[in-house]
């Protein structure tokens, strides 16, 4: 399937916007007026997907990022994965054993989370970032081709349906 050129930049742009919002929350935090309100809105938004514990977060200009260190690592490395994708997979479209890669990528992070919650050890931010980065980077390489192809297929089938039933179409049999 031929994927239109603009699909990759759209996905890249959305990922940059997502990561930008995570960084923007602390940068706007100390500012008065509208900036402060946007910052509070961003913290509120990211609170639904992350615990935002202060001790488990990276800080910028004295304020925690929008999400914890593990989530920051996942989203940041996901963005890096999308950025380097054209050089790693896009050029020759290397086939990957995707199921096993996803499992292998998630395993260190899951072990880290489970052992941490069981109280067997207290993972440091370094471990959280390392395991989250592995998962985010490999997940991007595995998911991106299907995200691009799937989006193209969906848009194509949507257009095809609307082409078959253009605006103003009336069924003569029902008239």
């Amino acid at each position: 399937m031929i994927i239109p050129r603009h699909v990759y930049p759209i996905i890249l742009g959305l990922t940059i916007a997502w990561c930008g919002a995570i960084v923007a929350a602390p940068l706007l935090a100390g500012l008065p007026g509208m900036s402060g309100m946007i910052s509070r809105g961003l913290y509120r938004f990211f609170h639904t997907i992350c615990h935002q514990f202060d001790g488990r977060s990276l800080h910028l200009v004295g304020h925690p990022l929008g999400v914890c260190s593990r989530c920051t690592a996942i989203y940041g490395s996901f963005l890096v994965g999308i950025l380097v994708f054209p050089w790693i997979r896009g050029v020759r479209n290397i086939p990957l054993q995707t199921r096993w890669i996803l499992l292998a990528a998630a395993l260190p992070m899951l072990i880290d989370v489970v052992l941490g919650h069981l109280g067997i050890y207290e993972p440091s931010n370094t471990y959280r970032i390392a395991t989250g980065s592995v998962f985010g980077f490999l997940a991007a390489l595995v998911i991106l081709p299907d995200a691009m192809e799937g989006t193209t297929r969906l848009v194509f089938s949507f257009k095809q349906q609307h082409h078959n039933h253009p605006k103003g179409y009336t069924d003569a049999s029902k008239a």
Partner: protein
Amino acid sequence: MPQKPNKMLPALYGGVIMAVISAVPFLNLVNCLCCAGIMFGGFMAVFFYKNDLREGVPPLENSDGLALGALAGLFGAVIGTILSAGIFAVVGNVAGHAVVNMLEGMFGNQMPPEALDQMRSSIEDGGFSFTNMVIALIIDPLFGLLGGLIGFQVFKSKTVTMPPPPPPPPTR
């Protein structure tokens, strides 16, 4: 060629799973791990859809994973917001209180007072609100879509379906 099955019902099942995980106290803490519960709903929607696929129907495609995950996310956002508001009205934010009490016990003396205040005020914010619904309508389809794509990776068929062989030439 037979048509593919309808996506609505598997997406609804996935959305209900998503909503229950997001709304039930303590179970919703799973979502602290990058919305694992929401992604699981999208993943399960693909699983249910895959079970509906019969022989001769076109195989599971990545666009199916995308559509099922996003649809499950829409269902999950609406059902989850209503369900969590109902649970909040009945029992309050029990999980939130438990987590804050635990953190105060563990790190209370190390945490800045404003961070503790912020945590205490955030656990009161759990009822039905327009903001909660809007946030859920953004987050759930997005992460449901990722779960749907992961589901596609797991459940896609390994073998390529071959077209039926041409009929033999007529014999006299």
